[in-house]
């Protein structure tokens, strides 16, 4: 009945009643008549387009590049008077979180080189984007990340011990030793487990946002929530990115897409990755509120994310795109040597010229909240904490033997249950042949 209404109205000779027009106006446009001298006709696919008699093609170069928002100058002074300064306690916490990530990165990168874990990815140069944006999210918000967002995890409360448990796949690893290193995830912190295939998280984030929106429509007592979805500019070349932005826009999903544009996708520089005005220009193409920010300015990222979150929740929900510009100072991963495709001096330049940690440090020093002494104390303390967590995680028991059989399916199949029983019998028959002491619970985890 509902679908047949518009046709009925269009076929009739009478104009639709005001009631019907309100009811259906977003879904169809009624007037095919064109008044003499009208500037345009409402083509359903471009309702606001005007006619022109000039035959020209649009090109990105005819438009100015989208500006990059920053609110802190390189010497650490706030230059946007309209924003409320960040509380001192939070600024200090964000600073410590950034240096925690950078210290952990250094130690774990070396540990990988020593062969103590198989793989690691650092986020040098992008700590600001991650910590700054995460500081603007609520605890109940849901996060989908790619694989270079350790800062988001730290800011949301993921502990050093949690990182190490995952990296060393011990009994405290939420992934039970089944995932590669750096594929963190946390139910308590509402962060979906990182998945290796690139860009798959982007449409999933739109779907999760749609679910949050529906849940709140059904139960208005729930707190308003958004999804934050992180990805790199390389991932934005995948088809999933485009599908995600379009469906998020058309379904009005409350999701903040946060693109870390760090200049490189493994060895591919952005010049070979795309030809338009970065990722931000694509957002407006999909009808999405979009901003480009200086990823080295943690306050700019934070402010943009705060505003984006408010926007995303307005009028029932809508997606927002943030493109955070930075430079990937680190190698892509421990499997990569980036000096094979970029000059060492370029990296050193970026490291010195602009970097989110030093800029926030200057801000804190200007306010008298930080000095060399506190810096030295914090770095020593954090380094000690990281090494302590590292050592403990390496010595920790492995996950229970039972986890070998669990989770392939929601419930163990009879075949898997039988296999587990068989293993238990083998261990019972030859107790001296197998040392199961390094697994949590030993043989007993195989009961039932």
């Amino acid at each position: 009945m509902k679908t047949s209404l518009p046709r009925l109205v269009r076929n009739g000779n009478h104009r639709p009643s005001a009631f019907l027009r309100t009811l259906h106006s977003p879904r169809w446009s009624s007037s095919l008549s064109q008044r003499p001298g009208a500037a345009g006709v409402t083509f359903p696919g471009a309702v606001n387009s005007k006619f022109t008699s000039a035959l020209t093609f649009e090109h990105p170069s005819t438009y100015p590049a989208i500006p990059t928002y920053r609110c802190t100058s390189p010497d650490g002074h706030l230059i946007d008077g309209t924003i409320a300064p960040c509380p001192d306690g939070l600024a200090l916490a964000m600073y410590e979180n950034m240096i925690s990530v950078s210290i952990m990165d250094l130690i774990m990168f070396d540990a990988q080189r020593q062969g103590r874990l198989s793989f690691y990815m650092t986020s040098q140069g992008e700590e600001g984007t991650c910590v700054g944006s995460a500081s603007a999210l609520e605890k109940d918000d849901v996060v989908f990340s790619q694989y270079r967002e350790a800062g988001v995890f730290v800011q949301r409360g993921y502990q050093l011990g949690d990182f190490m448990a995952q990296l060393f796949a011990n009994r405290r690893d939420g992934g039970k030793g089944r995932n590669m290193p750096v594929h963190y995830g946390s139910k308590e912190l509402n962060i979906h487990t990182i998945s290796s295939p690139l860009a798959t998280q982007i449409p999933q984030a739109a779907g999760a946002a749609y679910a949050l929106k529906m849940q709140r429509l059904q139960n208005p007592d729930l707190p308003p929530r958004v999804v934050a979805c992180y990805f790199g500019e390389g991932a934005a070349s995948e088809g999933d990115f485009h599908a995600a932005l379009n469906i998020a826009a058309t379904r009005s999903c409350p999701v903040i897409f946060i693109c870390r544009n760090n200049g490189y996708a493994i060895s591919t520089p952005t010049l070979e990755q795309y030809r338009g005005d970065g990722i931000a220009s694509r957002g407006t193409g999909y009808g999405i509120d979009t901003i480009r920010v200086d990823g080295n300015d943690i306050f700019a990222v934070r402010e943009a994310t705060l505003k984006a979150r408010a926007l995303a929740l307005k009028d029932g929900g809508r997606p927002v795109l943030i493109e955070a510009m930075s430079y990937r100072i680190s190698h892509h991963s421990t499997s990569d040597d980036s000096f094979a495709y970029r000059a060492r001096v370029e990296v050193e330049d970026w490291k010195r010229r602009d970097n989110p940690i030093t800029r926030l440090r200057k801000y804190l020093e200007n306010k008298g909240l930080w000095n060399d002494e506190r810096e030295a104390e914090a770095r020593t303390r954090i380094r000690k904490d990281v090494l302590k967590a590292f050592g403990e995680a390496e010595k920790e028991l492995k996950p229970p033997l039972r986890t070998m059989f669990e989770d392939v399916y929601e419930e163990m199949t009879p075949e898997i249950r039988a296999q587990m029983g068989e293993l238990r019998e083998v261990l019972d028959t030859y107790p001296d042949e197998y040392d199961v002491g390094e697994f949590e619970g030993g043989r007993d985890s195989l009961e039932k």
Partner: protein
Amino acid sequence: MSRLLRPASRIVSAASVRPVVRSAFQSFPRIPAIVQSRGYAKESGVKEYTVREALNEALAEELELNPKVFILGEEVAQYNGAYKVTKGLLDRFGEKRVIDSPITESGFCGLTVGAALAGLHPVCEFMTFNFAMQAIDQIINSAAKTHYMSGGIQPCNITFRGPNGFASGVAAQHSQDYSAWYGSIPGLKVVSPWSAEDAKGLLKAAIRDPNPVCVLENELLYGQSFPMSEAAQRDDFVIPFGKAKIERAGKDLTIVTQSRCVGQSLIAAEALKKKYGVEIEVINLRSIKPLDIESIVKSVKKTHRLMAVESGFPAFGIGAEILALTMEYAFDYLDAPGVRVTGAEVPTPYAAKLEDMAFPNESVIENYAKKLLRL
């Protein structure tokens, strides 16, 4: 897509940083000397090639021979390939023949399929076949079927290649064997090389074949060296599809296998000969589709026992196909039911010890062969 692993999948290739911890349980089987020398004359013409070098040589020769051939993929040009298979090709053939792609499997795979439909002979490199999942619609619905559906007017001379199967420490989303997936598609041809000769001959044949061909390489074999005969070093060397190779002759048991499992089966066969004096025949399939059932039946008629060894998942796999075909064509010659040795029915775990148990290795193959032979 998946680049993360894009990155991760390079672990093994980063030779200088082989993790000490993992090397303890990652056994890289060396081919027993007896096998290495078999079939090759000892004259100075035989050279040692790694599988990587063999693939590189095959690509270089075909680029040289046919101006319609070009290579496109992620990191294949500037970076010389994620696994260095395309090393030096950009310098030699220029950026019109060796082309870097943005990170978009469905995009660059679709582009190469389109180029093939328009008459070129592209080689589409996937950083690993795990990432080809993002482009599988192009491979199956377009590359494999367009010739048939267009009434035969649109050939699709394309080669899809890249590492397939599990590597080392890259977990479930990067450790999958696609032989059975592609092997089930009418219109595709699928090959799975083991040795350097296989790699060179099959890749060259794939590029020359007028049909879409998937060349399923193996990351753990890239660095392994094999002797390459003088004939195989020539630029006209190709291996015909649909012909398996008997890597080791025997009379007591037929092992049918492919890719990395060939080397493991040879080691198991050698060990069983030493311990029990049994002679095991090891058949290297080389080509998954078309499948050389004739060689398998011939061998089973001689040995009366069959074992299929592969690293794919157990259900609906290459092993299942081999057993089914043998049942259809050689049932009366079997003295015992055929046996499959496969990967475990579990998404590949990361944890080293679990990963080790998730795939067949020499001792697992040996044990199952022992059981089958009642030793």
